[in-house]
Each structure stands twice: as C-alpha cells, then as structure tokens.
C-alpha cells in the first residue's frame, strides 16, 4: 500500500512536471490541464476475492482512472470500516450492507450522492441507503429471504407444493404434515444469537403478516396485537407444534442447510446466495423456491463513499460504471439490485428470477440506527421464551418494548 502510494506520488509528480513543462512551452496560452488519473480503492466482503481481479481488469481497460479492489473477511468488517473512516484511511468506496447502512449514515460517516434516479433499483436496499430524502449508497446487490423446499419430501408425504398466495396458516399446515417425530422436520426456526439476520428473516415477515410492526415513529410497537401474534406464531412452530428441531434456539441457516441436504427438513429459509450452493450439493434433491407468505424481508448491499474519500468524483465514476445494468449483470457475483440487470446468465435462470420477483416486493427491516442493537435484544428475549425462562410471548413483548424504547431514547 505504501509502495503503491509512493509510486502514485511519483507518477503524479512526473505528470505534473510534464504538464508544467508543456504549459511553459506553449507559452502563456490558456489551456485546461486534465486532472491526472487516480487509482480508487474499493473494499468488499471476502467472497469477492476471486472476482475482484476480473472486475478490476474490466474497469481498468476502459478507463483512465484505475481501480483496486480489496476483499476482506466478513468478521470484523464493521470495525474495519468504522475505524478506517474515522482514521481517515478508508477506501474510496465501501460495500455496505443494509444492516450497516443506517448506522454509518446516522454517525455521519458517509457522503450523500447527488442525482441518482431510483429507476429500477430494488426497493428495500434503496430505502436502507436513504435518509431524509438523501441517498447514501447506490445498491448493487438486492436479495430477499424465501422458502426453499424439498419437493421429494412433499411428494412422499402427499402434500401439495406451496401455492402462489399461500398464508402462514398454509405454511404451518404443510410443516405439520412434513414433520415425523424427531427424524424429520417441516421447518427449522433460526433462534441463534450468532446469526441475527437469519432470525429477522423469519420473524419480521411473520410480524408483518399479522398486521404488526416493530418500530413506528421511533417508538417500539412490539406490544401491539399483530406483533404479538407474529412472535407467537414463530415460537409455536418450535414449542407447540414442534415442527422445528430441538436445538433451534441455537441454530441458524447454516445448520438448516445440513438438515436440508440430508433430507431432514422440508423447508428452509434462504436468499439467492443459497441457489448455487444447492445446485452444487443438492443435485439429487428436487427442490424449489417459494416466496414467504406476505411481505418478505429484503436485504442487499450498496456502494457508499465514506467522508474520508479523497476522490469522490472518481469513486462515483466507478460506482456508476459498475451499477449500469449491462456491467452489473455481467460482473456481479450476487443477485443484482436492478431489475434490468438480469438479462444474461446466471441471473436469467428461472430460479433467480423467482427470488428476484420476491425481492421486488420485499420490505426492509426497520431503518432505525438502533435496529441492530434492538434486534440482538429481541433475540435474547425470544430465546428466553423458547427455553421457557419467560412464561409468555406477551410478557416478552412487554419487556422488549420497554427495553427497545430505552435504546431509542424514549
């Protein structure tokens, strides 16, 4: 990095001297000196490690400015971003997911974008990147969690596949029919505190479907009937109907993938990133995707420019390039955030199209900067219900509302 910086400074100096020389040679003649090319840096999650050189090559071949993409392990990424922005050493562009966006925006760590059209960008991640009418991130990935189901298990039990407008009651019905003691489960709930996004992908749609919400006008509303019903439905899956395995309180999607691959769970939650994995590992299973009943939880990742960025214009140039539909469709390795970026493989695959259609109709988790904290608290309290430490969901809802309000500063 330092070497690169040195080389960069030297290149700059040579160019400046050259430009000055030319200026002098051309006398006092007025001329606009074009800014020297710059190298902009991009930070992303580790799964971009292999794709990064491909994207770099494509951009660098067609642009005067150059790009350098670094992929970092997801562990500690929030810390890395925050510390580097505050320490004034962050990359020019950061890939920020919908969880992190409200936090970073609220702390004033990101620069707003001017003149971006909503056009065909997916809603949930677009909302997560917006605050008070300003946009702080340009989405490149959009996704939603839906139900992946094992058709073979449905057939074996003589259960019809999920219909288009199924309800959570239909879901429960199916789950009960597909559960056989502790050998096979209809569904698995994600109660683990180590995987908060898996928890929210199940609980939020249930709360929404029963007419409830979590935060309204900066106030907790978990103690309203709709929310309580939604939470009760989630708890009942494990405790009352026992369609979910015994370890559910500490399980997440990664556990259920193993259940799914072993034919021990008929339905599991997941986003489009599950598709390539299932195509590879579940070749002997006939599986399909169905959107969750009602609104699903949308998520995604956007490119953001931190306040410490040295070349906002050049950074914008790269972001605009990467998020043009054709480029995005060709170079991204996760489901694109634009409806028109899906004309070529693999994004035109019917399975992706199904998830994509569900994503269009998805809803963002609460856009409150305190949401991550509130979510962790909710998991803790809901785990207590699952393990019987808290007697009822109503009691838990009361506690969560009270604690959430404290976190919100009410």
């Amino acid at each position: 990095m330092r070497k690169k910086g040195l080389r960069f400074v030297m290149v700059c100096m040579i160019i400046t001297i050259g430009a000055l020389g030319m200026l002098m040679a051309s006398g006092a003649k007025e001329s606009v000196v074009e800014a020297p090319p710059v190298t902009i840096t991009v930070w992303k999650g580790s799964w971009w490690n292999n794709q990064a050189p491909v994207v770099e090559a494509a951009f660098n071949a067609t642009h005067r400015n150059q790009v350098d993409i670094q992929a970092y392990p997801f562990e500690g990424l929030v810390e890395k971003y925050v510390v580097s922005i505050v320490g004034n050493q962050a990359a020019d562009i950061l890939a920020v997911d919908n969880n992190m966006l409200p936090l970073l925006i609220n702390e004033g760590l990101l620069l707003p974008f001017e003149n971006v059209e909503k056009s065909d960008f997916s809603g949930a991640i677009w909302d997560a990147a917006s605050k008070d009418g300003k946009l702080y991130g340009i989405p490149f990935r959009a996704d939603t969690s839906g139900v992946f189901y094992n058709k073979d298990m449905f057939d074996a039990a003589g259960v019809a596949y999920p219909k288009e407008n199924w309800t959570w009651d239909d879901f429960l019905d199916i789950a009960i029919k597909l559960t056989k003691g502790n050998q096979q489960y209809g569904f698995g709930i994600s109660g683990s505190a180590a995987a908060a996004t898996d928890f929210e992908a199940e609980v939020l749609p249930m709360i929404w479907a029963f007419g409830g919400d979590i935060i309204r006008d900066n106030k907790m509303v978990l103690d309203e009937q709709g929310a309580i019903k939604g939470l009760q439905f989630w708890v009942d899956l494990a405790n009352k109907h026992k369609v979910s395995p015994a370890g559910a309180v500490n399980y997440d999607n990664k556990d259920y993938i193993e259940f799914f691959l072993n034919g021990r769970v008929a339905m599991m939650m997941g986003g489009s990133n599950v598709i390539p994995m299932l195509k590879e590992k579940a070749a002997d299973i006939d599986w399909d995707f169905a959107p969750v009943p009602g609104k699903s939880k949308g998520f995604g990742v956007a490119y953001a420019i931190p306040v410490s960025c040295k070349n906002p214009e050049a950074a914008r140039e790269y972001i605009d390039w990467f998020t043009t539909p054709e480029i995005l469709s060709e170079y991204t390795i996760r489901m694109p955030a634009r409806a028109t970026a899906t004309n070529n493989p693999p994004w035109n695959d019917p399975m992706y199209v199904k998830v994509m259609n569900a994503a269009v109709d998805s809803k963002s988790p609460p856009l409150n900067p305190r949401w991550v904290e509130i979510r962790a608290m909710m998991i803790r309290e809901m785990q207590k219900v699952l393990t019987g430490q808290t007697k009822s969901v109503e009691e838990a809802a009361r506690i969560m509302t009270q604690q959430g309000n404290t976190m919100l500063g009410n």
Partner: protein
Amino acid sequence: MRKRKLRYKILITLGILLICLYSLLPIFWVLSTSFKQPDVIFSDPPQWIPKNPTFDNYKTVIQNPAMIQYFKNTVIISLSSTVLSVVIAVLAAYGFSRYKFRGRSVFLGMFLFSRILPRVSLILPFFIILRNIRLLNTHLGMIIVYIIIGLPITIWLAKGFFDKIPIEIEESAILDGCGPLTILLRIIVPISAPAIGAIAMYAFILAWNELLLALILTLDISTQTISIGLSYYKLEFGISWGNLMAGSVLMSIPAVIVFIFFQKNLVDGLTAGSVKE
C-alpha cells in the same frame, strides 16, 4: 517395590492417555476433516477416519499463491515480536525485580492495562497511532502492537520468576565487580531459562494466531497474516471446512516446531548446581 513400580507405571500411562485424549479429540476431527472430500465432510453418522482420504484440501491451500505471502508475513511478524518481547520483558522485569524507584508499582500496574482494556477501546486508538507514526500496514507496526499486547504477561511472569531467585548469587557477583547487565545475562537469564521459554512461547503464539487486530491494522497482502488468510475460507454461506482444516493443520506445524525449540529450555531448567555456582 516391584508392585509400587508397576502402579507408578500404570498411573503415568493413564495420565498420558488422559492428557492426549483431552487435548487431541477436537484436533483429531480437524485432521480427519482436512483429508476428506467435500461430499463426506457432513456424512451422518460421521466418518471418524476418512474412507477415501484425499490431499486435495492441502493442495488447494498450498497452491494458493497468497498463502505463501501470508506465511512469510506471519513468520516475520511472529518471530520478530517474540524476540523483541523477550528482550524487552526480561530487561523490564529485572528492573522491576531488583530496583526500587519512584513509581515502580504504578508502572508495573500500567503494564497490565493493555490486557484490561477490551478490544473495542483499543483498536481505534491503535489505528490512529500507527497511522500517525506511519506504521499502518507494516510489519513493524504489527510487531510493536503484539509486543505491547503481550507485555503484561511477559513482564509480570518474568518478574515473578526473577523475584524467586535468591539475591545472594548476585551479591557475590557484584562484589566480583560485575555490572547489572552482565549479571542479568550471565546469571539471571541462564537460571530463568524455563520462564523465558514459556514467555517466548506465549509471545509467539499470540502473534501467530491473532486475527482481529491484524484485520484492522493491515490493509493488503503485503502484511496480512495467515489467520486472515484462513478466515477467507469462512464464506458468506457456511465454511469451506476441508480447506479451513487443512490450512489450520499447516498453520499449526510451524507453531509446534517453535514449541519444540523452546521446550528445551523447559526440560533443561534450573538445577541445583547452577544456583550454587
């Protein structure tokens, strides 16, 4: 007499078995998984010993060109910080153990602070300091960070050990006209070989395995360590177990070699003779 000897032997064997079992059970699984094809890693019931062992995971790890660079960085950072830690800690511990000066206990207490402060309170200031002294994303920067993180243990332990060494030996050396540095090097350090071996092991493993400070304080492959390299096998969705386990085994081998090296200090520790000299 013979009976007692037999009982003794049985006890020793039992002890060995228990220690090995406890320490190695999870390791056994790490090893076993590292030789498995992806499709049998999660087989149920588990394949304790892989039926068709493969070296593919090891090949993938070794053939990854980045791994060589991670390895090089880790070796540079760990070995340097180990050597420097031991030198700095032995000097400081001797000072604390044998001199009385103003603020001694305050300083001694202050050395604990890098261990008391949680990571959240350390990373931002560390980042800003390293940036200001231009050591961000450098080997030297990581080395000094690991030294300071390790100092509470290295200094306190060395001091604890030095405190126990009877001062009479030193007094006679002083009368012979030896300076304090000579005494430290010629008398104290040889006697304290076990303690120095132990703190060296600690300093080494600290830098060798540390992940979170390394993640924040390095920027690219020129300084990233193996633990970062390994965490790339933690994917967005699940873990690339075969590779992670193979990488972990490969990463442990040099650490074991270093342990073997320092272990000599532990075996040939203090004997009656060396004190009386």
